[in-house]
């Protein structure tokens, strides 16, 4: 094997986005015919790495060798030509086209160069689907009518319709039933037997043990371990690699005051949404930070958005100060004093074309207006006071919000609710896209707001963040609360065991 160059060899890959260094000198070797697992927490850089591999992102520095030759993956098409196919978590299929049309998208079998030969396409698609163990999928059906698992099979068929040497699968099992997972693993086995390499991304350690050959662990944009044996490396070592911190987070001190006796400010009773989360009870007292820990897909964001009224619950109630909110109404929630800092800041919270002032004042416009007429001096003054209180930089609320770094954009969102006089703050992944150095400051801000009497409900996939910041932690797994405990009684190890394996492991 030593004489043969690896199929793929990436070395020293770096990639920065405004405010974040997503990849910081990552190396990755993949041999033909192996299942190479990529492991890491959210934000560790997995997605960015596979996008570089798929040609969707251009690395800032670093080299990529393919079968021993240096290559540049200028575009997804270039990567595909080499034989690299990627199956993303969010499937990239065209819902209104048929299965066969999706599989052959961009390389349709044609007659005379442009007439699509539908029958040929359908026949070859049927063959691919059979190879994938799903002969029951009709190539003529529209992709939008298929289940998530079937769509994934179509995605895979599309990858195989090219002469593929390496397939990247980004959490392929996340949407699958156990039976379907078994089928997926059979397919992976067939592929590797044919000499195809698979780069497999998953949070589930037991899967990696079952099908993986080697493991590369990413953390904070670095490969902290490359090519570990997947079957024999102890769980403890893998978890330690994923969590061991080079950069220590600095969390603010918890207050000594005990709030357990206080009346809850936010109460959630039996809140449920079909297919997202089971009936859920929780309460947050003024001055308290409650954390929800769980993986992507465990229903965390959905829970926050339902509490906030952005999604309509199937059952259950949200009470603020003992008064029930109208379900499914954001306006009712905001009026009652709720504020949400959503997961996708740019898509869900910020008006990117507008100044910081206008982003901060948007929820409190009635405070600066009489008869609809805005007092811009008062507005600017209030926005300045709110952003200063959070030490938002630059100290000039007239700059466009898009010029701010991730951490300061988050502060602008917090300032919005501060100005509104909000009493219950819902934070969804508050430090996503926030530079490591700026996080400590955000943590301090959140703690201070709690000390001032706000009730804070925090969602994060970064376990240390939940443990370090929250007073009480609810651990979620697939829409269910599997464990509740004061944060100081839990450690990262235990939480990761709970969320990844569902049962307390030693």
């Amino acid at each position, binding site marked *: 094997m030593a004489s043969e160059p690896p199929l793929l060899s990436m070395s020293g890959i770096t990639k920065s986005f405004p*405010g974040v*260094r997503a990849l*910081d000198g990552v190396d990755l070797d993949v041999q033909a015919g192996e299942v190479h697992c990529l492991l890491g927490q959210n934000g560790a850089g997995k997605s960015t790495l596979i996008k570089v591999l798929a040609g969707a992102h251009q690395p800032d520095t670093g080299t990529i060798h393919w079968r021993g030759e240096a290559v540049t993956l200028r575009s997804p098409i270039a990567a595909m030509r080499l034989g690299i196919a990627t199956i993303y978590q969010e499937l990239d299929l065209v819902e209104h086209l048929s299965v066969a049309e999706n599989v052959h998208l961009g390389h349709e079998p044609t007659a005379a160069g442009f007439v699509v030969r539908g029958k040929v396409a359908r026949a070859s698609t049927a063959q691919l689907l059979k190879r994938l163990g799903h002969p029951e999928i009709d190539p003529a059906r529209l992709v939008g009518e298929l289940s998530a698992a079937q769509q994934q099979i179509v995605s895979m068929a599309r990858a195989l319709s090219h002469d593929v040497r390496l397939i990247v699968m980004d959490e392929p099992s996340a949407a699958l039933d156990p039976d379907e997972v078994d089928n997926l693993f059979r397919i992976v086995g067939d592929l590797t037997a044919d000499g195809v390499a698979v780069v497999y991304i998953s949070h589930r350690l037991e899967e990696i043990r079952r099908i993986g050959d080697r493991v590369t662990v990413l953390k*904070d944009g*670095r490969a*902290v*371990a*490359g090519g*570990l044996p997947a079957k024999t490396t102890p769980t403890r070592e893998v978890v330690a*690699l994923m969590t*061991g911190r*080079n*950069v220590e987070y600095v969390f603010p001190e918890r207050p000594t005051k005990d709030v357990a006796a206080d009346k809850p400010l936010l109460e959630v009773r039996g809140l449920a949404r079909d297919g997202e989360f089971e009936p859920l009870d929780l309460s947050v007292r003024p001055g308290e930070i409650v954390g929800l820990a769980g993986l992507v897909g465990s229903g965390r964001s959905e829970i926050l958005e339902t509490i*906030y009224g*952005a999604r309509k619950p199937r059952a259950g109630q949200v009470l603020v100060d003992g008064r029930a909110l109208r379900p499914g109404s*954001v*306006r009712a929630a*905001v*009026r009652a004093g709720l504020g*949400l800092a*959503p997961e996708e800041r740019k*898509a*869900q*919270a*910020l*008006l*990117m*074309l*507008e100044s910081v002032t*206008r982003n901060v004042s*948007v*929820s409190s*416009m*009635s405070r600066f*207006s009489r008869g*609809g*007429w*805005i007092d*811009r001096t008062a507005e600017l003054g209030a926005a300045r006071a709110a952003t200063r209180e959070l030490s938002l*930089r*630059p100290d*000039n609320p*007239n*700059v466009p919000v898009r*010029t*701010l*770094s991730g*951490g*300061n954009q988050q502060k602008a969102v917090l300032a*919005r609710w501060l100005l509104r006089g909000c009493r219950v703050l819902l934070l969804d992944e508050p430090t996503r896209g926030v*530079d*490591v*150095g*700026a996080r400590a400051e955000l943590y301090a801000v959140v703690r201070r707001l709690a000390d001032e009497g706000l009730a804070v409900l925090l969602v994060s996939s970064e376990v240390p963040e939940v443990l370090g910041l929250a007073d009480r932690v609810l651990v979620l797994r697939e829409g269910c609360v599997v464990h509740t405990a004061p944060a100081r009684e839990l450690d990262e190890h235990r939480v990761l065991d709970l969320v990844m394996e569902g049962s307390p492991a030693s």
Partner: protein
Amino acid sequence: MTQHASPPRDSTDKVPSTGAPPAWRGLMARADVRTLSLLGVLAVLIIIGGITKPDEFLDTRNLQLVLTQASVIGVVTVGMTFVITSGGIDLSVGAIVALASVWATTVATQEYGFGGILFTAVLVGLGCGLVNGLLIAYGGMVPFIATLAMLASARGLALQITDGKTQIVTIPSVLDLGERDAYVLGVPPLVMVFAVVTIIGWLILNRTTFGRRTVAVGGNAEAARLAGIDVRRQRLYLYLLSGLCCGVAAFLLIVLAGSGQNTNGNLYELDAIAAAIIGGTLLSGGRGTITGSVLGVLIFTTITNIFALNNLQSDVQQIAKGAIIVAAVLVQRRTASTT
């Protein structure tokens, strides 16, 4: 495998520069580059007009005519600017103007005199806007489709009311508004209406909560919703506003033409959209400028006038308009990508 310690990373919270130096800022805030360039284009056009037809173009009567012609489409464009700023589109404006103008000039309506005509025109405009708004905001229809349907039906209804005939206005007080005697200091009343609508529109968009909500909905509807804005109600109001502008424009057109016709307002939707776009309002929403829209209207009307004075046919005019739209949008993309 080893775990190598990485050096501590520096926190790179970059402080962006605050742009132009203070001395510039006041001027830049009031007249941005885009507005200045539109003014430049208008100035060039006036020079061209002055050179090619020195006597006719700069004649007071001609200038009054240009402004009067700009008034009707101008009022429509102010409403359209709001709709586009909110991320929507109103394809029905021309048809609403037609319907309002014929409904307000039927024999039955004319019995109620000046007030009857004005009231009917405005009410018809608001009614059509209400239907558009309800379909879009609460019926979940795409603005393009809902207003396209309104375009077809309003035109049809206008034809049904008139049976294709021109309805002559016989109310002297209405007709007098268009006469030279009604000019105040040389300014036609129609132009004054346009000016008032422009100023009110500018104030609403830039100085009121209504304007803020419009921009927020257009910039990021989901963020606006999660910030506690009633996005649907705002959308309803916006199409009502556009309908109202169409009603006012229909009244101006009745005064100008002395009649109501079902062919009125032909292709106003395209003229209004084009004027808003070259003025700098983003078709994707989130940014709108009343000043730019009005300058866009003036540019188009001036071109039409210069071409007419030089006996160029309307086919040439249309081609020139198309070229200007393309040029303006390309220039905007350039400036947008460099900032």
